[in-house]
Structure formats: structure tokens, C-alpha cells
């Protein structure tokens, strides 16, 4: 029935269903726009399930990520969610970090332990980050109450609230978009570290950088999402070009995925407007725990099940984001109508 959507992919020299490519692009576009990640960890296994030739999977994925990031970053910028200064610093730090990480992988390969070390580290990171973010979400009210009590106690005693200790080695840099002033060295160390992790794990690193921007740099969640996408744009462009030179980009497939992803990214970015920072963090935590489960299944040689888990998780999360967007939109519309009524009266 769906054969009518088959298209010929000239570089891979095979027929492939265009609907599947657009659908994968759309779901990863929604996730990318909403969480600020590239989404290669969803696309590659999804393409694998449907029999897309693996020789072109990563290159085609990176090509569409580049196009999609342009759409998502432009929209996030309009919403004031991109800190350009921080984004540019992240690119420099990440490039150096990735090179160090890649060098470490080669050293681990020479020792013959690269495979297990990378897989276990990947799992530890996904589960660790996910569980920490869940814990952070669950305890947020308790922490807010404790902070309020501290402020009240300080006010009663006529003293200033003790300032949280931080490393203030000059030069200090101010990031007006994020509203933070932080040591150059702290920012550099964070991006070097996240770059090192992505080089070591062989991933784009969006899912590591986004929480790092929130928890280590102190960015508001929406700005972390937008700024991370700004960095993904550059890594996607570089990846697209370098994989293109090596003949590993199937151009027609990339265009079809981009059509879906660009529309999906618009949906994902718009949803950020309706969901508070902690809501984004909660959904992100659930998503990366499910991605971690998929990596764990792969560890037990259940590759197909692992791919289905990550794909179903991505689709499920897309549905949740779209429902949240729709509810938020309806609420906003109702509020606007009520305001207009009040104004008219």
C-alpha cells in the first residue's frame, strides 16, 4: 500500500520509502527543537530498523541535522533563547575537547578495552544524568522552601543571605542573554569536559551539553536548549561537509528527512514557549533514561529490540510534546479571548 511513496535514492542505488524518511525526520525534529539536541542517537537505529544502508546513515543524518538546526536556532533566537557569546565559546571548547576524547579512544583501542569502556560510560552517563535530573525535579519544591526559610531567617536576624561559593578566577565574563557572570575558566572547563565526553563516546554531545549548560554554567533551561542548538548547527555543518567529501551522504534521503525535521523542529521549538523549564528537564530526563535502556539492551546483543525501544520512546515523547503544545496553545487562545472580552467591556 505504501509502495507508492517509494523513491529512488541515487547514491545508495536503492528504492526507499519517502514516508518513513519524512516521519523519522519529523519526530527527531520535534525532539531536537524541544530539547536542543541533534538526535543522531534516535535516527541511526531507526534507519537501521527500516533497512537503510548503514554506510550512509551517519552522514545523511548529520546533513539533515545541519538543515534542521538552522530552522530551530532561528526560531529559538526569535524567542530570545540563544546566547550567541556562550554558544561561540562552546564551539571552541568542544572542538578541543572532542580531539582529546578521540585521542583517548585510540589509546583505549590500543589497550583493547575501548568497546566496553565507551558503552559502560555511555550507559552510566545516560542513567546518571537522567536520574539526577529526575531527583532535581522531584526535590525542587523542597529546595525552594528551604531557600525561602533561609532568606526569612536572615531577614529576621537583619543579616544578608549568605552567597553561594563559586570559583571566581579572572577573567570574569558576563553573558547578558543568560543573565550570568562566570569565570572564563569555568566555562572553558565545562565545554572542554563535555567535548571530551562526546569525543570519547563518538556522539554529537547535545544531550551532554544541554544539562551542563543548566547545572554547571547556570543557564535558564530554555536558553540552554537554544544555545545548544546553536552549537549543534556548527557541528552539523562540519559533519555534513566532511561526510559529504567521503561520499557518505545520500542527498535525496537527507532532503526528505530535512523536510520532516524542519517542520518538526518548528513544532518542538514552539512547544518550549508553553512548558516551564522544569517541565522540559523532566521530559528530557525520561527520554535519556529510555535511551540508556536501549544502550543497555544493545550490550546484551538485543540490537533490534534496542532500536525499537529508542524509536518508540522518541515517538511517544513527540506525542507528549505535541499534546503539551496543543494544550498550551488552547489555553493562550482562551486567555487572549478573555482579555479581548474584558477590553471590549
Amino acid at each position, binding site marked *: 500500500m505504501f509502495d507508492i511513496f517509494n523513491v529512488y535514492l541515487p547514491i545508495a542505488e536503492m528504492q526507499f520509502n519517502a514516508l518513513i524518511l519524512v516521519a523519522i525526520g519529523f519526530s527527531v525534529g520535534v525532539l531536537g527543537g524541544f530539547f536542543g539536541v541533534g538526535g543522531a542517537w534516535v535516527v541511526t537505529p531507526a534507519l537501521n530498523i527500516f533497512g537503510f544502508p548503514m554506510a550512509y546513515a551517519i552522514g545523511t543524518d548529520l546533513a539533515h541535522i545541519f538543515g534542521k538546526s538552522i530552522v530551530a536556532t532561528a526560531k529559538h533566537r526569535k524567542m530570545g533563547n540563544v546566547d550567541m557569546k556562550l554558544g561561540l565559546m562552546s564551539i571552541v571548547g568542544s572542538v578541543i575537547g572532542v580531539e582529546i576524547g578521540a585521542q583517548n*579512544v585510540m589509546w583505549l583501542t590500543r589497550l583493547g578495552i575501548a568497546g566496553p569502556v565507551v558503552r559502560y560510560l555511555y550507559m552510566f552517563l545516560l542513567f546518571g544524568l537522567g536520574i539526577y535530573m529526575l531527583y532535581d525535579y522531584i526535590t525542587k519544591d523542597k529546595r525552594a522552601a528551604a531557600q525561602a526559610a533561609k532568606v526569612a531567617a536572615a531577614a529576621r536576624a537583619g543579616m544578608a543571605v549568605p552567597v553561594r561559593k563559586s570559583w571566581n578566577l579572572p577573567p570574569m565574563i558576563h553573558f547578558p542573554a543568560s543573565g550570568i557572570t562566570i569565570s572564563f575558566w569555568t566555562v572553558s572547563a565545562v565545554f572542554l569536559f563535555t567535548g571530551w565526553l562526546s569525543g570519547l563516546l563518538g556522539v554529537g554531545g547535545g544531550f551532554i551539553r544541554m544539562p551542563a549548560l543548566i547545572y554547571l554554567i547556570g543557564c535558564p533551561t530554555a536558553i540552554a536548549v537554544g544555545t545548544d542548538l546553536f552549537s549543534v548547527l556548527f557541528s552539523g555543518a562540519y559533519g555534513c561537509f566532511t561526510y559529504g567529501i567521503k561520499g557518505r551522504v545520500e542527498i535525496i534521503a537527507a532532503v526528505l528527512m530535512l523536510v520532516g525535521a524542519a517542520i518538526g523542529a518548528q513544532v518542538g521549538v514552539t512547544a518550549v514557549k508553553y512548558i516551564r523549564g522544569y517541565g522540559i528537564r523532566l521530559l528530557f530526563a525520561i527520554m535519556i533514561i529510555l535511551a540508556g535502556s536501549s544502550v543497555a539492551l544493545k550490550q546484551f546483543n538485543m540490537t533490534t529490540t534496542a532500536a525499537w525501544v529508542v524509536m518508540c520512546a522518541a515517538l511517544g515523547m513527540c506525542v507528549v510534546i505535541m499534546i503539551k503544545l496543543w494544550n498550551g496553545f488552547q489555553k493562550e487562545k482562551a486567555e487572549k479571548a478573555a482579555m479581548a472580552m474584558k477590553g471590549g467591556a
Partner: protein
Amino acid sequence: MKRLWVLIFNLILLTVPSALVWAAAEKAELLEKKVDVTKLSGLNYFFASWYNDNMWLYAIIVTVLMGVIGLIIALVTDIILKMIGMEVHKIEHHE
């Protein structure tokens, strides 16, 4: 004296990354392949020919095309979303 210590510490920290980077990343290998263009026509023929003849130009075409399509779709969907009342402006950041 404090300024001097800060300067020295900054210089030490600056040398850390450059000392750590001593080799290039593991890169994907070149795919040695020629596409059969005899049965192709139109866009497929155009892309496959460039793929066979000049991989650098093919990479440039792919990168530029992705950027242009991304921009066009961004513009079009923005107009559509505005029409249905889903336009976006600068938002306040609530945690």
C-alpha cells in the same frame, strides 16, 4: 602581587588543552564507489554525476542545499504558524 598570580595561573591553564591535543580524531573512511548513472535522469543524474566526478563539489552542494532548504522551510512554516496564531516572540524564562 595578586594580579601577577592571576596572570601566571591563567597562562598555566591556557597550556592545558594544547598540551592534551596531540592527534586528530578518528575519521570516517572514504567510500570508494562509483554510481551507475546510465539509468538516471533529472536531479538524480545531476547529483550522481557530481558524486562520481568531484566529491568536494558534491559535499559543497549537499551542505549548501541543506542550509537553503532549512531556511526556506523555516520561512514558510513561520508564515503558516503565524496565520494560525502560533507566532512566537521573546519569552520570559520561567523555571
